[in-house]
């Protein structure tokens, strides 16, 4: 069964990728979607097995490589954590597949699109079911590749290509750290199997090794390196720049890869590595700080963005920060729970915005929307459900998971917990504001699109509508239904040791003894955000304009995303290009070509022309040359002879 879950998408990829032309666009879409729905169904069955208390197991497929002491298998690690991820990935993926049938209807390259989607799903499943670091890295790189291919799916657009390359390169930075982490793990533990490594982690706690004269804590270093990979994949602060640009890809891709699944791989990694992170407190502090900073930073940028997808992208970035904070304070269950619920409402928001974009003939600028409520009532309601879930309206999914993160941050004894709590509350306020801003600008007020566009606006077709409804249901009820088992009373039995908590880690118990106001604070700021957004965009729409004019510097700072792109362009891109240009012009062109092929060639030419000029045609020159030759030889022997 587990093999089927993982390999059915691969089958879909091969079918659509190799025989796409033969199958035709429709059939390729149906085949891949069908296989994925099957895979999703099996995942849910597996999930309920685990709910029913089925034990975790290891499914070995085959030996992959053996080199000295390095032994790597293709094997699936089936436990609660991987099953939860399986459910998330296959569910969202199958819904996105179905949605894409409608969304990509007019695209000439559908088989390729569906092949990539299935390839991504396969790689993601490999990642979450990995039993060892090498297989995980395989999946890790596989999703990176699929992400690259899908961002650049419309390869005729320069912006899409640039975004694809950017995503790939920024991810490489993180992957570099991840790879180093794996090397370090193999060096320290002598194995890349999760079981062996986790079992040996306690022995390595607090041990150090010397590097360039510094005593470095082994586990801290390993965890930081692994976290570097997580930062790249999950678009955390400093390595976040690729995610907003990745919105150049088709919207279903944004929903699947850049909201629900791939970007959460970093969170998954940290949680999966909880047996290591629990022994590396310094690394956990870093995780908290980075997560909280990202949550705040991304939310602040989302306040002023005008591209509907970019707002949601920054929102994703921000929510990933929440998840990392949860993981950092040791509440791994909460991190995964937020990941789980977030997948539903964020996919819903993306697909809903996709429906809006689809309706408006590929218009993504919210300033050219507005007044769509009457034209797209169903879409509006669904988007509204996504929004209340995201902002954390009581009883929706976000209420259970996001508020739990904030509470955990308050409850934690970690040195960075106070910082995290403050920033998360502020971020929650901003989340509420930008989410409602999006809703109001899109669906309310006066229509700002041309009347011609407005006349074409239509509700999405059934294939797009049904996935939205399912996701809406998940957004509303997943929190209520699963909160108990994920983070409530039943969590111990549910997780069954899939996540590890150190002996000092009692965060989930601590959360019960919080002051009365803490659980309320999130809801209060949520309402405040809603109120501000209402005032700004419904009551007096000129207010934000005036505010922006008065605080033009702050506005520009946020609009330009804290100038990170410009900064990176200046520091990395320019200098890399400069080095490249230097090596090209000076290194290769001047040095190697100049003194190598070109230089020798021109030297030969030069010598040749001199040699030709020797031949003057004058008889006496020739005779002279002969005599000089004889004289030279005689002189040579005279001097040599003297020495003999």
């Amino acid at each position, binding site marked *: 069964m587990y093999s089927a879950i993982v390999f059915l998408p691969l089958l879909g990829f091969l079918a659509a990728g190799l025989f796409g032309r033969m199958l035709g666009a429709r059939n390729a879409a149906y085949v891949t979607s069908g296989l994925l729905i099957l895979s999703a169904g099996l995942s849910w069955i597996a999930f309920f097995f685990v709910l029913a208390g089925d034990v975790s197991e290891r499914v070995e497929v085959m030996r992959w490589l053996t080199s000295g002491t390095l032994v790597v298998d293709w094997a699936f690690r089936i436990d609660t954590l991987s099953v939860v991820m399986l459910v998330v990935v296959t569910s969202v993926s199958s819904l996105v597949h179905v949605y894409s049938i409608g969304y990509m209807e007019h695209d000439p390259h559908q088989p390729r699109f569906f092949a990539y989607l299935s390839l991504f799903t396969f790689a993601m499943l490999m990642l979450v079911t990995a039993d060892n670091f090498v297989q995980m890295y395989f999946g890790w790189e596989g999703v990176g590749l699929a992400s690259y291919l899908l961002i650049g799916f419309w390869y005729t657009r320069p912006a899409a290509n640039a975004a694809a390359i950017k995503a790939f390169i920024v991810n490489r930075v993180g992957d570099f750290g991840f790879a180093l982490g794996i090397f370090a793990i193999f060096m320290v533990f002598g194995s890349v199997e999760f079981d062996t490594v986790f079992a040996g982690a306690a022995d390595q706690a607090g041990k150090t090794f010397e590097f360039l004269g510094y005593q470095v804590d082994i586990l801290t270093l390993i965890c930081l390196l692994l976290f570097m990979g997580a930062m790249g994949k999950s678009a955390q602060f400093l390595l976040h720049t690729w995610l907003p640009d990745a919105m150049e890809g088709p919207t279903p891709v944004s929903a699947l890869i850049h909201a629900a699944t791939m970007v959460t791989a970093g969170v998954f990694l940290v949680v999966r590595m909880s047996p290591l992170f629990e022994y590396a407190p310094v690394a956990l502090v870093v995780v908290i700080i980075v997560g909280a900073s990202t949550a705040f930073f991304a939310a602040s940028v989302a306040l002023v963005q005008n591209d509907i997808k970019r707002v949601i992208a920054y929102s994703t970035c921000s929510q990933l920060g929440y998840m990392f904070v949860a993981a950092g304070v040791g509440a791994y269950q909460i991190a995964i729970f937020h990941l789980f619920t977030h997948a539903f409402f964020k996919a819903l928001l993306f697909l809903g915005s996709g429906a809006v974009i689809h309706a408006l003939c590929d218009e993504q600028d919210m300033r050219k929307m507005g007044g769509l409520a009457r034209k797209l009532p169903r879409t509006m309601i669904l988007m509204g459900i996504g929004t209340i879930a995201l902002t954390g309206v009581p009883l929706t999914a976000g209420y259970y998971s996001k508020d739990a993160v904030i509470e955990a941050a308050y409850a934690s004894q970690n040195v960075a917990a106070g910082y995290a709590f403050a920033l998360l509350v502020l971020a929650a306020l901003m989340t509420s504001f930008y989410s409602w801003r999006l809703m109001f600008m899109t669906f309310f007020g006066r229509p700002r699109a041309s009347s011609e566009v407005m006349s074409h606006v239509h509700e999405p077709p059934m294939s797009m509508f049904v996935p939205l409804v399912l996701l809406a249901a998940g957004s509303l009820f997943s929190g209520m239904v699963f909160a108990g088992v994920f983070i409530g009373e039943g969590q111990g039995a549910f997780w069954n040791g899939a996540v590890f908590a150190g002996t000092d880690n009692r965060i989930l118990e601590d959360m019960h003894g919080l002051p009365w106001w803490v659980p309320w604070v999130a809801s209060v700021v949520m309402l405040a955000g809603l109120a501000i957004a209402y005032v700004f965009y419904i009551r007096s729409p000129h207010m934000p304009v005036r505010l922006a004019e008065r605080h033009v510097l702050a506005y520009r700072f946020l609009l330009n995303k804290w100038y990170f792109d410009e900064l990176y362009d200046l520091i990395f891109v320019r200098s890399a290009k400069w080095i490249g240009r230097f090596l090209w012009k000076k290194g290769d062109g001047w040095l190697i070509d100049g003194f190598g092929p070109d230089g020798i060639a021109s030297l*030969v*030419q030069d*010598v*040749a*022309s001199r*040699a*030709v000029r*020797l*031949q003057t*045609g004058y*008889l006496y*020159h*020739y*005779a002279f*040359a*002969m005599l*000089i*030759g*004889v004289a030279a*030889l*005689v002189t*040579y*022997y*005279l001097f040599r*002879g003297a020495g*003999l």
Partner: protein
Amino acid sequence: MGPGTINTDILTALPEVLLAAGAMGLLLLGAFRPGNVVSTVNWGAAVLLAIAGLAVLTGTTGNVTAFSGAFIVDDFARLLKILALAGTVGALVLSVRFMQIEKIVRFEYSVLLVLAALGMMMMISANDLISLYMGLELQSLALYVVAAIDRNSTRASEAGLKYFVLGALSSGMLLYGCSLIYGFTGSTNFETIARALEGQGMQLGVLFGIVFLLAGLAFKVSAVPFHMWTPDVYEGAPTPVTAFFASAPKIAAMAMFVRVMYGAFPGMSEQWQQIVVFVAIASMGLGAFAAIGQTNIKRLMAYSSIGHMGFALVGLAAGTVGGVRGVIVYLMIYLAMTIGTFACIVSMRRRDGMVEDITDLAGLGRSRPMMALTMAILMFSLAGIPPLAGFFAKFYVFLAAIEAGLYPLAVLGVLASVVGCYYYLRIIKIMYFDEAGAEFEPMARELKLVLGVTAVFVVGFFAYPGPFVAAAGTAAAALF
């Protein structure tokens, strides 16, 4: 010495005697027979050369000297005489139709070729400074005249004149060297000289003599810095004459070079080796570089032959049996390549006359694919690309140099051959990739034959090198 001795002497030198008598016979025939006798004389000359070759093959065996040791016939002499005669016949074949079309119909031409061949055979068999000079001058005088046989062409006359003046200068030097050597050793016979020098240590006077002698010899093989005449003469002389200059006389001169060094001065090999090394490097280098700047294919072939003589001298510099074997193999292959290439050059004829520029070959790959193909094969071979014969020629001499410990020489030689590749490959590029000009006239049948034979030799050498290398080995062994 009784009359019996004279008889044996004449029998030993039978091929030479036959050539001498035959040449005079043909001359009389041409002078006194009325009407057009050119083709008769041509045929007669060819038959005469063939008979001489037969006589060389079937005459003496082993190591025989005649005329009081002034004349020697051994395996070395026999093999190289065959090569020289083959070269002469090849040149004669290339000439016949050319001379008719260019209206240079003189029966003296083929008689002069025969006389030159006689001179070459004398050079190859010379075992005495006097007989050496005699053969050399006989050959040279014939060549001076042949170079200027097209009297109406100023270029040809200039070429002949230049050749004559510089040749006289080199003969002077050679004679001066001979006189020095005679003065210090008291003999002109190679063996006596060698004996006289044995155990004497180095004598500066003899060394000076050797330098001058070498200068004269180097002039004949057109080695740097005594090569200056070569490009001008090659360019100015009628093309078949150039083909002749580039083939047979080079072989004879190189044979003489080898014989003098090993016959008369085996004990001073350390000294003369240095000159040969210098001359070889200079020749290879100049041959490689100067040819790049050429636009005229005959001039290019002049530098090419300078370079190739440099490569052959590498074998001589090695100073071993293997080295001499390398020289002989080199000469065989060089002969085939040169004659074949000139067969192509002689065929570079358009409706309005001969053309000689390299660029005139443009588009040959389309207009005359077979000619272009064989030409390309020959160029690859001249460049020394395996598995063609030219590669093995270089291989044997470099091998000998390496075995003798002359690493710098071998390395420089290989580098020079790399540079040299450029201009051979350029010709191929022009033939196949450049925009075509006017078409050439069809190739004559006998030229096709020559081209075919040489191309087959060049391509097939790697499959059956055994007999050739074995023959060269036996010949080389005769000198030691």
